[in-house]
């Protein structure tokens, strides 16, 4: 009896060890590494594009989704090879500082302010400036990413353009420190307004079966344009960067095929991003 059990245990342990050995091995990653904003990941755009890129170039791409601020920081520290971000002013500064090369605009959509259907601050259809002033005056909840992302940078710029100091500790102002979709969900729970990009909002509306609790209340105007660009991390600043692969990605996503794919990426029959690499 005892021998039987020992044999049994030996087989069990052997099986465990075998299972461990069958896993794919650890290798230093030869793939292209990208840091991107949460919107391109949360909407599913990259999941949709990545296989096409790999098919066209044979390069596997991995991406980590963070705010644009952190993405730029990852590039500065040489931890990624290429960036897909949306904060034009910060990007231009980044390239001017020698951290990135070959900044290439690839697509855009626009920012929108979304809020509860009841619209407590009564801002529907107003300009951004009037809307932000009304939100502040009425003390309606406003949810901010608060994470130095492209959307957060834009929000700060909008407060300033409205002639207001960006709120910080005000009781109606909530800073989540999280990505776009998590922040929208928090805004929905708190019945607050939030600035978001149209692509992520469409994805959110799609997830809620086309009937989301938050609706678009403010849209339009040049201020709200949201341009996405691809930037290669500078090989001069980072000698170890996989520059060839980064250039391949940059060229591919600005190319005709990828641009058509972006154009075809729709949810609820709406385009999430509008390609504009040719402009």
């Amino acid at each position, binding site marked *: 009896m005892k021998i039987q059990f020992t044999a049994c245990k030996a087989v069990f342990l052997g099986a465990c060890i075998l299972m*461990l050995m069958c896993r794919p091995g*650890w290798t230093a990653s030869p793939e292209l590494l990208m840091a991107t904003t949460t919107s391109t990941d949360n909407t599913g755009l990259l999941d949709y594009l990545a296989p096409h890129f790999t098919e066209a170039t044979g390069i596997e791409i*991995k991406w980590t989704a963070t705010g644009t601020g952190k993405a730029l920081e990852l590039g500065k520290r040489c931890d990624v090879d290429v960036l897909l971000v949306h904060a034009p002013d910060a990007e231009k500064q980044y390239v001017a500082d020698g951290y990135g090369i070959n900044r290439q605009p690839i697509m855009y959509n626009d920012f929108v302010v979304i809020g509860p259907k009841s619209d407590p601050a009564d801002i529907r259809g107003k300009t951004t400036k009037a809307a932000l002033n009304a939100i502040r005056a009425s003390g309606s909840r406003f949810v901010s990413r608060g994470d130095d992302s492209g959307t957060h940078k834009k929000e700060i710029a909008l407060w300033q353009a409205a002639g207001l100091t960006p709120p910080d500790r005000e009781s109606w102002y909530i800073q989540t420190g999280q990505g776009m979709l998590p922040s929208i969900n928090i805004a929905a729970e708190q019945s607050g307004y939030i600035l978001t990009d149209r692509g992520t909002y469409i994805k959110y509306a799609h997830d809620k079966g086309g009937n989301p609790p938050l609706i678009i209340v403010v849209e339009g105007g040049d201020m709200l344009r949201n341009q996405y660009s691809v930037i290669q991390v500078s090989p001069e600043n980072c000698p170890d960067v996989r520059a060839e692969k980064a250039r391949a990605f940059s060229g591919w996503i600005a190319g005709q095929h990828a641009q058509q794919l972006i154009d075809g990426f729709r949810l609820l029959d709406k385009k999430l991003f509008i390609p504009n690499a040719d402009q």
Partner: protein
Amino acid sequence: MDFILQGTAQALDLLFSGDPETFSAVAATLTVSSYAMAASLAMGIPLGFALGHADFAGKRQVRLVVDTLLSLPTVFIGLLVYAFVSRQGPLGEMGLLFTLPGIAMGQTILALPIVIALTATAIENTDAGLRTTLLSLGAGRRHLLTGTLWEARHAILAAALTAYGRVMTEVGISMMVGGNIKWHTRTITTAIALETGKGQFATGIALGLVLLAIAFGVNAGVSFLRRK
């Protein structure tokens, strides 16, 4: 309430339909936790044994340090490892950032104090008469060591399980060092964090149940090994 039932149904579906995303996260979780456990047991059991068995000056102080390290917050470990393995950090050349070995490194730091402290306690708690008995049976130094270890094996196994539980359920290190990269470094816990953030509660619950199922499997395996 709906989404809890929905999550349970979805969990079964994810497990039995062989959903590739789920299995990629399960594989990532098992990989990092196996390597972290192998490393922390290989280092922790001898160190814990020494700490519990030997008498040396400063033993109480060492114990105090080890016990303090039990409360290391995972995000702090994540931050430390991140600083070290970032390409500009001291270990940058190894290219460990955003990889499973990078996460495993952090989780080893998490598990090591647990293994050391619990092993030391286990050794201290072995029957005081054991030493005399072994010596009276003519045991040499080597036999004394192996005898004590054998006697404490169940408590050491429990230490390993405790550490395993901590490593499996950890999210801070995996998120910061791993970057939550789909198909590569997305573990079950970072996937749950992501799905919850996206408001996909059912998927989150499903993944949580998958994690529980794995924990159950591991414990069932250990309980089988312990049966006398």
